[in-house]
């Protein structure tokens, strides 16, 4: 990640004064299937070179989180519904669910204070897909009726 570059000024973001940033939340999003376990984290820690992850130990940097793409979509669905992105991450990382799956936290943490919401764009895309198939089928049925 580019955390040190951003915090030290080597990298910038448009119209953002990075000196005002008090907390940095690093999140890795994986397209693949991941079930977070103690063993998996141990494996990851043993596989990653410490020099490439030194930025994760800086003062302002919050605990690294790993999400699956479905978790990322759900997280953004919650943001779209009006929940605070950083409040969600703060809840997730401040308790015993820090090293657990996002979905497990959503399901099992009684104090998470967040609700699971699907992104509206995903709902729209599904409706479009269904309409396409139905339209194709209706056309066939109309043709069959005409033939009769």
């Amino acid at each position, binding site marked *: *990640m580019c955390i040190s570059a951003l915090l030290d000024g080597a990298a910038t973001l448009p119209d953002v004064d990075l000196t005002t940033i008090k907390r940095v939340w690093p999140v890795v999003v994986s397209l693949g299937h991941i079930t977070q376990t103690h063993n998996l984290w141990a494996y990851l820690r043993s596989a990653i070179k410490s020099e490439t992850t030194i930025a994760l130990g800086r003062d302002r940097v919050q605990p690294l989180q790993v999400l699956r793409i479905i978790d990322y979509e759900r997280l953004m669905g919650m943001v779209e519904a009006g929940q605070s992105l950083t409040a969600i991450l703060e809840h997730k990382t401040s308790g015993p669910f820090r090293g657990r799956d996002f979905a497990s936290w959503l399901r099992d943490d009684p104090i998470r204070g967040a609700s699971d919401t699907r992104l509206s764009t995903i709902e729209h895309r599904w409706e479009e897909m269904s309409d396409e198939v139905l339209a194709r089928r209706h056309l066939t049925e109309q043709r069959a009726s005409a033939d009769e």
Partner: protein
Amino acid sequence: MPGHKHGRSRKRQKSRPKRRSGDTPVAGALPSELDQMWVVASEVDLGRAQTSLADLREMATRLPFEPAALNVAALQARLDPILTNQARHWELAQAFFAGCDDLLPGLETFLSEGPMHVIFSPQALMLLTRVLIADARTASQRQLTDIEMRLLQDAVFGAHSAMEPFLSEPPSFGVEELRENPLELDLLAYELQAATFFDHPPMLDEIARHREFRRLATSDARLFDSADRVPVDEWLRDACGGVTADEQWAVGFGLVAITQLPPDPIFPHVPAENVRDMLERLQLPGITPELQMLSASRGDYQLAFDGFGGGAEAMAWETRPFKAKPFLRMANDDLLLLAPPWLLSWVGEGFHYRALTHAQSLSSGLSAKYTRFVGKVVETYALDIATTATNPSDAAVHGEQRYGPGGGARTTDVAIIDGNDLVLFEIHA
């Protein structure tokens, strides 16, 4: 390095259960992956002799292929929607093991011993399917005889224990240990695969996501000038014998509707005449009803599994041929959905894997180019979602920014500035 020391780890199948009503977490207990693990019944639990993989393969030689495969596929289909429902497992066990008076009382006792105890594992049934493909005797569709049914019942239960010899030594999961002992890679693969068997991503989200990936890859102007752009739709068409990507999607969705939509229980057997009717209704008369793009004969599967290698240990986790071809094409051209997740994979992530496999067949350079392009597609998708979800008055969203000498380094794929907080998302495709 923490080991895998859970008392009954050999029988645990990782899953993603919903906590049932009345199932209150223990106060003060830390959540762990054990909360996601369901304990599957094994022969040892019931005081029976343990079936080895060799035993299972020998049993398969006495089973007729198509009738046995039909029964296992039907069991997979009925199990799929009730994976973590203990009561429904018992109902299914009573139906499938009907007449097994030496087995059912033990299973009932086993279920009563713990709220996380279940009977069937989809991974064990996949293993049995794989063994049937390899070893069952040739036979077309018909009813099983009583003797054959009893043998199949024993094989189904035995399949749940057949991998245990490979799991008797718990893995440490350290990198060095894995390098030194390749068998532990098999165990890690088995554990990860076990988790995916119980991980049912919502169909709506999966299909919608992969459809959007294809739209971005083929018709989104922001990626037209990408140096890594490749003709994805052309490759998808070539990968499926001239069937376009849109037609693939329509056929896949149609088969989802035939085999999986309520109110009917999932029924995996699709007679050839039903396939012809579906193609007619979808206005796809040019597609042959054998649907070779998503079906394989027994011989096709044997060749595909042989091609991937991995030996006997891989029998419990090698799923790629099933994901590439979720339907068994039987002797009379009827189709049999071997397990519902394979079809979901075909209409979802399958588009990516079909394009990737085609790229690999062309050249390693094109394969690498495609992989880089997919990375850009997924990054664009993630940025779009963040932009859509975020209210500009509350937070700012940025894609990756170049920095460093010559602009050779890049910031994360998505950055969200929320007050004095900066959230950095790195997308790993």
